[in-house]
Structure formats: C-alpha cells, structure tokens
C-alpha cells in the first residue's frame, strides 16, 4: 500500500505546531497503524530527519499508552480498539490520512503526537484508590461479592485510561474516565469506606484540571477502546448528587 500521511509536528509544548505531509510506500495491510508510523520514522531517520514522536508501549491494546486521532476519530476508524490494534487493512491504497494528537487543554502536547495525560493520574490520586491495607493477598471469597457486581465493576475497571473519551468528546470532557474509575471502586465492598469522599474529590479534581462538561453526545462511549458505557456517567451523577446533599454540601477546591 502507498499512503499520503499528514502528521502533526510540534517541537514542544510552547511552540506552534503544523501538519507535515509524507508519502509512505510498501505498507502491508497486516501492519498495525503504529508499525506504519515506524516505517515512516525509519525513512525519516534514513534521510537524517527528526522522527515523529508518538506514544506506545504494550502494542496489544491493554496499556492505554497509544493515542492519536486518525481521520477525525480517536484511535481511528475501528471500534473497540486502540491505535496499536488498528490494522492498515482498514485503509485503502492511495488513502490520505490525517494524524493529530488528542486535543484538550488538560492534555498539553509534549511533542508531535505525544500529549501529557498526567491530569488523569491526578484524578486517580484524588480518590481512585482504597485505604485498606495492602498486605498479602487475602483468601479467595473472604469478602463476598456477587457475580453481578463483580462483572459490572469489571466493566468499569476495564478502562485503560487512554484518554480517547476526552479526545472524542466535543467538550473535551473527562466524565467517562472519571465515572469509570469512581464506579469501579464504589460498587465493590472494598470501596465503601471512602465511597462519598471518593466521588467528591475525583469530580473536584476533574474540574480543577479544566476538562469540559458532559452534554450527552456519547462520542466517548463510541470511541472507547474498552467500550465503557455512559451508564457509568449517569451513576456518577447520581452518586455525586447523593454525596453532596448529605452531611457536607461543599467539596474541597483542588489545585
């Protein structure tokens, strides 16, 4: 396959980026999208040019490191898949492909297609944990969890924190990510002691990072490589309302 790739180039966070156009040839339909970029980078290095910086790690769709908005879709045109699991057979010979970084004020570009997603880490630090001791593993079934709850908590916990929800959202909102993380722990018995403080602090941190609001377009759910349901957003809305009308009706403002 021969392709024309328009790729976003930006030297650092403060510089102004622009698109750069490259022709790539000898692309196998069996390659992943990242392997196509690898081919492009080898060519750039051969011509003593700076290779395109992009995030990647496991390349098997479970780490949440790869990103990219490809032809206007976060993680490209394949549903329920990360960019590393997107194959070039999804494209046709001679196609033009536009590759952009995830765009959000809370995800500043570090270089080219690499964005800083530490805002997600700070949301997790605000409440995405349990305070029970983490000693040796306890015996199986020591804490009873019903099959239904375990399955549903797992559906939420499947979130790999890639940020495609933010990238796809017309408002750059982090509601789907935050909701998945809140609900995953709040459904489990281990998460109960901090249940209310968790949702309050994580929502407060989400706001502090400058993400947008949810206006129910549900682009996030469509873009999510783990198909996290927007039902979790509704559940977080319910939990937050409940937590706020109980004892304390304020949340700490987080930096």
């Amino acid at each position: 396959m021969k392709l024309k790739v328009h790729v976003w180039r930006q030297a650092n966070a403060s510089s102004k980026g622009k698109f750069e156009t490259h022709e790539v040839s000898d692309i196998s339909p069996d390659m992943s999208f990242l392997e196509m970029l690898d081919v492009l980078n080898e060519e750039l290095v051969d011509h003593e040019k700076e290779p395109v910086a992009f995030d990647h790690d496991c390349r098997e769709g479970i780490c949440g490191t790869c990103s990219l908005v490809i032809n206007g879709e976060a993680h490209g045109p394949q549903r329920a898949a990360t960019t590393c699991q997107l194959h070039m057979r999804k494209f046709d010979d001679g196609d033009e492909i536009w590759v952009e970084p995830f765009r959000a004020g809370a995800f500043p570009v570090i270089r080219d297609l690499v964005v800083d997603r530490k805002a997600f880490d700070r949301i997790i630090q605000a409440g995405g944990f349990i305070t029970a001791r983490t000693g040796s593993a306890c015996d199986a079934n020591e804490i009873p969890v019903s099959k239904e709850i375990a399955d549903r908590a797992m559906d939420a916990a499947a979130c790999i924190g890639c940020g495609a929800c933010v990238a796809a959202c017309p408002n750059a909102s982090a509601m789907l990510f935050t909701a998945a993380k809140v609900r995953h722990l709040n459904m489990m018995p281990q998460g109960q002691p901090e249940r209310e403080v968790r949702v309050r602090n994580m929502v407060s941190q989400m706001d502090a990072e400058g993400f947008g609001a949810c206006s129910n377009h549900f682009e996030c759910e469509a873009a999510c490589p783990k198909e996290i349901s927007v039902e979790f957003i509704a559940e977080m809305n319910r939990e937050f309302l409940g937590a706020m009308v109980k004892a304390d009706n304020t949340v700490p403002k987080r930096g």
Partner: protein
Amino acid sequence: MSQAALTITDTTLGKKYVMALSGLVLFGFVIVHMLGNLQVFLGAEAMNGYAHTLQSNPTIVWLVRFVLAATIIVHFGAAFALTAQNKKARPIKYRMKKDVATNYAAKGMIYGGVVLVAYIIFHLMHFTIADTAPVIAGKLGYVHSSPFGPEQMPNVYNNVIKSFQNTGMTAVYLVAQVALGFHLYHGSWSIFQSLGLSHRRYNDAVRSVAVAFAIVVVLGFAAVPIAVWTGFVQAV
C-alpha cells in the same frame, strides 16, 4: 492545595443538575401552555374564558411569570457557564473531526437555546406586551380585536386567528416549534442522564418517550397556526 471549598453549583456536575431541574420546570410549562392553546379548537367562548380567568388572577399569573423568568435566567446562565467551560477545554480544534454517536439535536442544543430565547421575546411582544409596545407589535402583525361578549372579555381568540392569517407570522412560529422540538427531545432524556436516573432496562424507553413527547409538543403547538392559516378555524 488550597483550602477553599466549592459549593455544588461551582462544580460541572452541579451545573448540569441546574440545567436538568430548570429544564424540567420549563418542560412542564410548555405542556400546560400547549393545552391552553389547543382550546382554540373548542371555540372563542372557551379560549376567551380561559384568558379571562387567567387575567382575573393577577397574583397567580405574576407569580408564575416570575418563576418562569427566573427559571429561564438560571437555565440560560448555567448553559452559558458550561459552554464557556467547554470552549476553554479544547483551545486548539481538530483539523478533522468525525461524529460517530452524536446527532443534530445534541449538537444544536446551544444554538436552539439561543433561537428559543429570541423566539420567547418575539412571542411575548406579539401576544403579551403588545399593549406596552404597540408600534413594534403593529410591525409584527399584531392585531387588536374588539372585546368579546357582553362581559367585554379580551378577544384572545380573534387575536390568534388574525395573527396566523399572516403567512410570515405562521412561518416564524412553525420554525420556532421545530427548534423547540429538537431542544425538548435532547433535553428531556438528558434530564434523566444528568440526574443519574439511569437504568439499562429503561434507558431506551426514556429515549423513545422523549421522541414521542417532542413530536406531541411540536404537533400540539403547530396545530393552531396551521389550522388558522389553512382556514380550518375562522374568526368570530
């Protein structure tokens, strides 16, 4: 980390609750308003009697007007704050962005809202405050009809008929009803999502009912101008 505290309406979720609850109030009003309008089909007696009853209870009418005006201001204010936040959240736009899941109703919410505010002002000038701004009202095609019946009741019925015999006026109202329909469809099911009244067993049903409600409201409101314009309902 500062020690300042945020109240519920400072948070993004809190503003969405405000949108949902104020929207619910306005949705309720729209249905009551539609039922009032449909009295055109019961004849001049019924419609003018209804208008007379409302005007004879100024305390209730002004209380309702105050609540509605405050609700609109709150609804609009929260929408403005959220939209500003959303614009700020993506300072650099995508060169190419594909919509996968959203629809025109969702994308048009904010524009539809602005259209509806403009329409509400126009509508109030047209039927409600025509007496205080007769010049503007005259230009808008407003017609004062002579009082109705021996009790000299306001002839709201004839005002409606004469207004919608004007094609331009009928068109303005019909366009506004379509905008209202889309706004109500997305808004009504979003109330459930924003307040967390979600359950996978009922979510599809909520969407279907939202479509049905929007269609009923649009048809209910559009029926009056269409019936007048086509001559189905005549002046007395």
